[in-house]
């Protein structure tokens, strides 16, 4: 466990000086709170910005942060130094993943409390967000492992992130996109969050989120077997 804590601590030091990652983690929560109070439209349901931006946040921040951290470590050879210090791959992934999860949780708390979400709805909202963040962290880690360097990670992470984060928003205006989008975990999480005050989780929600998680887990293990964390 001390190894995972050491990796976590390293990530705190490193990210505090890494503006690229910091912006990813801070930007959306701040924009959400500002939008919630600054842009009000008639007939707009309560907390609309929060609900939409939360899903975009959980599809963007964990994916980009995880893949950027892992690919940078691969490119600069620090990951090889860690592996040669007999850090087990799961200890490393747990340390970095836990760090990204904590940062995203803080962002989520900031934006939800900042927008005034309270009570049982907030508890449920946090649970749904946690599930989404874990899936996105796994996806980001898989992309980071699959990529040899930061450049290749970016070229893979951007389209993946766009698909998962923008589809729920576009699906609101386009039925065809909605028909495709419903097969993605972010769309299903959005559907749950939209009605978070009433807790209506359908079988469709559970099956699609579960299937997405399973597929991402398979991709994660494939990436690990193919590239791993320190293979030549």
């Amino acid at each position, binding site marked *: 466990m*001390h*190894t995972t*804590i*050491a*990796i976590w*601590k*390293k990530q705190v*030091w*490193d990210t505090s*000086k*890494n503006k690229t990652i910091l912006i990813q983690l801070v930007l959306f929560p701040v924009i959400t709170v500002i939008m919630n109070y600054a842009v009000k439209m008639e007939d707009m349901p309560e907390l609309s910005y929060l609900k939409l931006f939360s899903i975009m946040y959980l599809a963007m921040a964990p994916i980009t942060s995880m893949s950027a951290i892992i690919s940078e470590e691969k490119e*600069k*050879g*620090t990951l*090889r*130094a*860690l592996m*040669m*210090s*007999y*850090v087990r791959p799961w200890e490393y992934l747990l340390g970095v993943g836990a760090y990204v999860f904590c940062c995203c949780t803080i962002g989520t708390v900031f934006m939800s409390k900042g927008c005034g979400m309270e009570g049982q709805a907030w508890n449920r909202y946090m649970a749904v967000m946690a599930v989404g963040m874990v899936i996105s962290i796994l996806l980001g880690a898989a992309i980071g492992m699959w990529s040899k360097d930061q450049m290749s990670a970016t070229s893979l992470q951007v389209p993946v992130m766009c698909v998962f984060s923008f589809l729920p928003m576009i699906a609101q205006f386009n039925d065809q996109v909605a028909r495709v989008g419903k097969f993605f975990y972010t769309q299903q999480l959005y559907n749950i969050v939209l009605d978070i005050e009433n807790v209506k989780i359908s079988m469709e929600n559970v099956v699609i989120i579960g299937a997405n998680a399973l597929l991402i887990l398979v991709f994660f293990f494939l990436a690990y077997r193919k590239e791993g964390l*320190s293979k*030549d």
Partner: protein
Amino acid sequence: MISVLDVTKRFGEKTVLDGVSMTVQDGEIFGLLGPSGAGKTTLIRILTGQLRAESGEVMVLGKRVSALSGADKKQFGIMMDDFGLYERLNCYQNLKVFADIYGVDDRAIAQVLAEVKLESARHVEVSKLSKGMKERLRLARALLTKPKVLFLDEPTSGLDPQTANEIHEIIRARKDAGTVILLTTHNMAEAEKLCDHLVLLHEGKIVESGTPKEICLRYDRTKRIVLTTRDGRAQTWSFDTSEASKDLKMREDDATHRLQQLDEMTSAVRKALEENDLAMIHSQEPNLETVFMALTGKRLEE
């Protein structure tokens, strides 16, 4: 301490190591000398368990590398060419990450920072360090656990002579403290200066081994005498000193040539002395570079 027996390693069709055997004794600095692509780094990677050999046996600390436990491997200090540093962290934080992983305390960090003379840069961000300081920090990271075996891959590559000398001093101090050191280099001066025992690697094969002096003497077939006069002109005479040349049945024309050479040299020395024109007279022995050239037809730096 380390033994390698008939090790072969291939990358696809290319054989990178071909039947390599060697033994590293306790308390010595052992050098792998060879040009780029000779297989030096691959051999270190096999010894540290980063790669597996196709065939042969590799023993470190009395155990097969594949059977070494995590605790055994924590007795290794490894400084590879491609092991990076966290550029946004300072020197202390870079070492602290690994100290926490190894379970060593802050006193060990202070000790290694002092050993590599980086105490004053303790809180300086790595991105702001010079190349030499970064190399010293990488070395400090390898020394953090007071390792029994230190693997150094090209530890002074690309450094200025002063920084290289500082790193040599640290390596020697570690040797005196009882650490076994295995280093790779393509710098023959570094190998001659530091190593107690050397192997010359070429295209994955050991072409020569021994102490630097032994290797040079083995190829001491031609003695060169160089006379330099005050105006900087140099004259060189070469004498065959091989065993064959001592044969009394040497061919007549060879013997005549040798006598002529001797005659010419003594006349030149006498003349320079008489005219008070002698600046320097010295012999030139073969060095590792010339030995490597003689063995492979290539230069070490190639």
